């Protein structure tokens, strides 16, 4: 029986020709993009069209913004921190409400019947469409947070509902024959079964969340934020700073997604599902 454990060790990755080609292409992908961008920027600037800075100019702007960007008068880290706080608050708020609600709506057909029409009505409204209202109704502090909240809430909710509904009926039967009552079936079977789906919702929510924060900050940005760098750069005519903000958002988006994937893998491993 020990051969079963040995099998897991035999996971050697062979360097095939196909692998080699794909790796090389991935390595040259970004340089090609940057070169293309550079040529395009130089061409436009030659035509007296200054809105597209070269990569080098953006890099210099990033270096300048690191200490203090001319639009928000804050360091880059302070701006990133401002956005991160909004992001985390909105995200956690959404997770904290969508997960329990999703569990309830996935479990109870009556609760679902009551909530379904409202949810389906609200879901198609883009989070950004709420921004003008939120800026009037909520404070400058809560406005952007609630925008993120709306963006994260629906993907998490739908995934949790789907997760609860996707529980294998066989393991519910197994739990019942082991003497589990309704609450135990829910807490010990349906809830853990739905966690991987919840994580999928969280990953989608992470992506949507960043899109929302930038939009929200572009309209209202008390105390800076990465969106504020972009808007501020445009307002003062520093297009290199504007692009520096865009690059910052891209990096933050990638980092959050990586962290999300890492957590997802950890959870799956911890649950023995990978």
């Amino acid at each position, binding site marked *: 029986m020990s051969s079963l454990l040995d099998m897991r060790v035999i996971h050697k990755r062979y360097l095939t020709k196909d692998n080699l080609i794909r790796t090389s292409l991935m390595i040259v992908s970004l340089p090609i993009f940057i070169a293309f961008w550079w040529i395009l920027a130089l061409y436009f600037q030659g035509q007296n069209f200054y809105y597209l800075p070269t990569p080098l100019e953006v890099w210099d702007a990033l270096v300048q913004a690191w200490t203090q960007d001319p639009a928000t008068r804050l360091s880059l880290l302070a701006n990133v921190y401002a956005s991160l706080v909004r992001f985390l608050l909105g995200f956690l708020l959404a997770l904290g409400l969508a997960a329990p609600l999703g569990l309830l709506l996935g479990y109870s057909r009556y609760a679902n019947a009551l909530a379904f029409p409202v949810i389906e009505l609200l879901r198609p409204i883009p989070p950004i469409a709420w921004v003008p209202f939120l800026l009037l109704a909520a404070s400058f502090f809560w406005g952007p947070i609630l925008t993120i909240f709306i963006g994260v809430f629906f993907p998490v909710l739908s995934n949790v509902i789907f997760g609860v509904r996707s529980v294998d009926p066989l393991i519910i039967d197994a739990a019942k*024959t082991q003497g589990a009552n309704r609450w135990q079936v829910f807490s010990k079977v349906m809830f853990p079964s739905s966690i991987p789906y919840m994580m999928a919702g969280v990953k989608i929510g992470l992506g949507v969340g960043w899109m929302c924060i930038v939009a929200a900050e572009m309209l209202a940005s008390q105390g800076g934020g990465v969106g504020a760098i972009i808007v501020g750069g445009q307002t003062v005519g520093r297009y290199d700073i504007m692009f520096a903000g865009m690059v910052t958002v891209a990096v933050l988006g990638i980092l959050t997604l990586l962290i999300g994937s890492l957590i997802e893998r950890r959870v799956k491993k911890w649950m023995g599902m990978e």
Partner: protein
Amino acid sequence: MDGNGIILSIKNLVKAFPKDDTEMIAVSGFALDVKDGEFICLLGPSGCGKTTVLRIIAGLQSATSGELTLKGKPITGPGSDRGMVFQEFGLFPWRSVKKNVEFGLEVQGVDETKKNEISKRFIDLVGLSGFERSHPNQLSGGMKQRVGIARALASNPEILLMDEPFGALDAQTRNLMQKELLRIWQETKKTVIFVTHSVDEAVFLADRIVVMTGRPGKIKEIYTVTLPRPRDRGHPDFINLRKKILDELEQQRQGT
């Protein structure tokens, strides 16, 4: 027990499902008394209602009419006095072998030391020592079903219900698991009701074989198998009994 050693009594069991505008009778007039410690096989073609009967005994489905009593008490729903083993295992994928086996104990609020002791006993019994921390996806089909059996036994049920438990296994593993099951049965002295569509399996395992016919599901014949264990599949008596039951199933198939 009623003194006569009957642990499970089924009287005039009927199960009807609504189908279109009418009713489909899945099981009709099923009656059986099972003795304590007996190994019963419910045998029949697919769709004969044998799994339905088992699920009704488990309490996972309700009977349309009829009377089911376990140790004199009527069966009203699922409970830990009946352990069930499923064809597709039904293990909790996020739980380790140990945690799967302990599920029923956990649900009943058994304390930690007792849980450890019981799960160890049954993991040892099914031959999975050393795999306590493995998860189901790291186990072969045969090993998964060993976990299924240990889990069903850990709650100390009066009766073990098995729904084609070896149907998802390859032929060799299946034969091995049949021998293992008999060993476990003899060690634990549990009453077993085992659903199968394999005549060979039924003759190899059972004290009594309940042959069912389909549409509606009814008992056709009950065979008492007196062949001594371990049974030899090559023995003329084994071959004769198997042929007799196969012939009967074949007649039935042609008749309907």
